[in-house]
């Protein structure tokens, strides 16, 4: 059993859209993962380390995309255990291809960076076992449009890597479900909720907040979603 203690609270709460995405990713990895092999987490923001480790149920190898992420992983590693021992393995700046071939039972990648994604994908492709699930948190088109309104944007939050999907297909990955989070409706509800608060109508603000939560994960794939969780599976190669 694995757990993350409150040390992680220093990062503050994660956005609901990310919590939803990490829930779905964890469920997918738990369902399809190989229990004997560790999961690899490629993280671009400290909050993603916490959210991932809180949901892990076995060993996790962490590849940090920045010094801040590496520091977060180090701090959390001391409070994460699996069968009484630390469950977190901190990888170097890169995956060692010679040692990593087929080593990982699944991957959560949150989130690809423009400057490193192609190199990372190639290394992950070598490191993942056949048929291993790969869950990737990427921005939706709506994130481009609403970026100006995100006052609390953290370093490492998803940015655009347009060619990622094409490259996955080229490598033979079978892309499964894509889950979308956020969109125009959730933006509108969030704005109305804020207005209601300013207008001293907490009753309306609470109702709008509920509508916001509902709209955040609305039916189907929205072309203007803010975030997308993509689930792919590596093909079997002989």
């Amino acid at each position, binding site marked *: *059993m694995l*757990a*993350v*203690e*409150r*040390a992680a*609270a*220093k990062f*503050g709460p994660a956005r*609901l859209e990310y919590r*939803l995405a990490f*829930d*779905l990713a*964890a*469920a997918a990895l*738990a*369902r399809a993962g190989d229990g004997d092999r560790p999961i690899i987490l490629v993280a671009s923001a400290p909050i993603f380390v916490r959210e991932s480790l*809180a*949901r892990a*149920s076995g060993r996790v190898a962490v590849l940090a995309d920045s010094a801040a992420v590496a520091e977060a992983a180090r701090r959390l590693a001391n*409070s994460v*255990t699996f069968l009484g021992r630390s469950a977190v393995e901190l990888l170097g700046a890169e995956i060692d291809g010679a040692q990593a071939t087929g080593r990982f039972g699944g991957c959560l990648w949150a989130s690809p960076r423009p400057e490193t994604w192609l190199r990372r994908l190639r290394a992950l492709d070598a490191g993942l076992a056949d048929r291993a699930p790969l869950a990737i948190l990427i921005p939706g088109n709506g994130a481009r449009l609403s970026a100006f309104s995100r006052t609390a944007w953290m370093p490492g939050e998803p940015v655009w890597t347009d060619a990622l999907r094409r490259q996955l297909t080229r490598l033979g990955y079978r892309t499964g*479900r894509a*889950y979308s*989070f956020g969109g125009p409706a959730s933006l509108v509800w969030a704005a109305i909720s804020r207005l209601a608060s300013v207008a*001293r*109508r*907490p*009753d309306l603000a*609470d*109702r*709008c907040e*509920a*509508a916001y*939560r*509902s*709209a*955040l*994960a*609305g*039916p*189907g794939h929205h072309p203007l979603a803010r975030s997308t969780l993509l689930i792919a599976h590596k093909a079997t190669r002989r």
Partner: protein
Amino acid sequence: MMALRLAGAAEVAVARLDRWLETMRGPGGYGGPVVHWWGDCLMFCGAALDWRYEGIIAAYLSLFERTGQARWLGRAQRAGDDLVRGQLPGGHFRNSCFELNPGVGGTPHEAAADVGLLLLARVLRDRGDEGWRVYPEAAERNLTRFYFEQLWDEPEQRFRDDPHRPSFVPNKAATLVEALCLLADLTGRDEILHRYVRPTADAIIDHQVGSSGTPLDGGIAQYSLGRELIGKYFPYYNARCLPGLLAAHERLGDRRYLDAGLRAASFLLRWRDPDGGFPQVIYSNGRVNRYPRWIAAIGDVLRALDLLQPYGFEPDLERTRSWLLGGQLPSGAFRSAEGFGSQVSQRPPSGTPDPRDLLPVVGWNDKALRYLATEVTEVRDDETVLQEGVQRSISAVRCVHRGRPIELWEDDRAIELRRDGGAVYRWLKGTEWAEAAGPWAMLASCQALA
């Protein structure tokens, strides 16, 4: 005659609910999905060591004390062992955040788990069971490492709800008061009462409305941030304040705490709906968001009001008891609420429930069990009760989600939401993660699971 009728109904309800609870156990303890006013936890369904353990342990101890049947003590001790085994080196309990799971440091959940541990310890100690000490040790570890070392704000003389913000939540503090009073009882350390319980109880009554003759009189505000009081009054959470206030009154002999409890109870009854249910939240501007109205959780309201009986407060609670008992599902679980589908519109529900209304949640059902356990004097063998025309635990109920029909289906092994014959959400009991074709709100249009 009424009391006898209720006792009979409660006996059957308890037997069926206990049977359902057994189906919700997995590795590490009781699991399952959570629905709540502030959000749901539908994907993570693993064992969660949150406030469900307060109600479960207290209920089984109550059943043991009232029936003398050893199996109930065994159930309570097993739950206590879940907490002890699930405690982390820093004192936290694994997955203690209820609707925010997975995570640790949940409030009031860890204090509520401490209450369960301390109640169990008291019973075991009184029976001469030498193994009792492990439970208060676990509770004290949590109270010390988390509450005293991280949440206690010495200058303000109150427990924060968050180490990083000057927030105070009366109902959560009241749960903590209960735990601290029990710890003081077990250890004889009265300084706990004076250093922590008294200022905390004082802070709770600082949040109470004192405007005699007004509709909000006696209501306790949901929380404060620094000096700013947030004018939201949840009847359910007001009821959660009562046991802590009474515990403080009984230990410290301060009449103000009892008076505050009595006024909070009057507030509750003033806002009770004619059918015995309670609105979700009343605002200081006089507006009400009525839906969803809790059902299983109303066990806590009934229990809190019962606690005031020795002080001469004896309102007619029959409508509210009926409201609770009418919420039992064929599976044996109690439904969570009425009106989740109306949370945004606040229009009265049309009749067919939202699946979140019916989704059975351990962390609400423990409240029903705890109250009903105080109403029985005997619980016959489960199978005997179940043979009396009570359906076994297969349950299928038609619901509406976002205007489209959906079926909630449950048996001993799984909970599913089905549309057009296929599952769109499935939790196999005992596993950590549910399977969904999308986050909850996507269910209306998502494709079926493979």
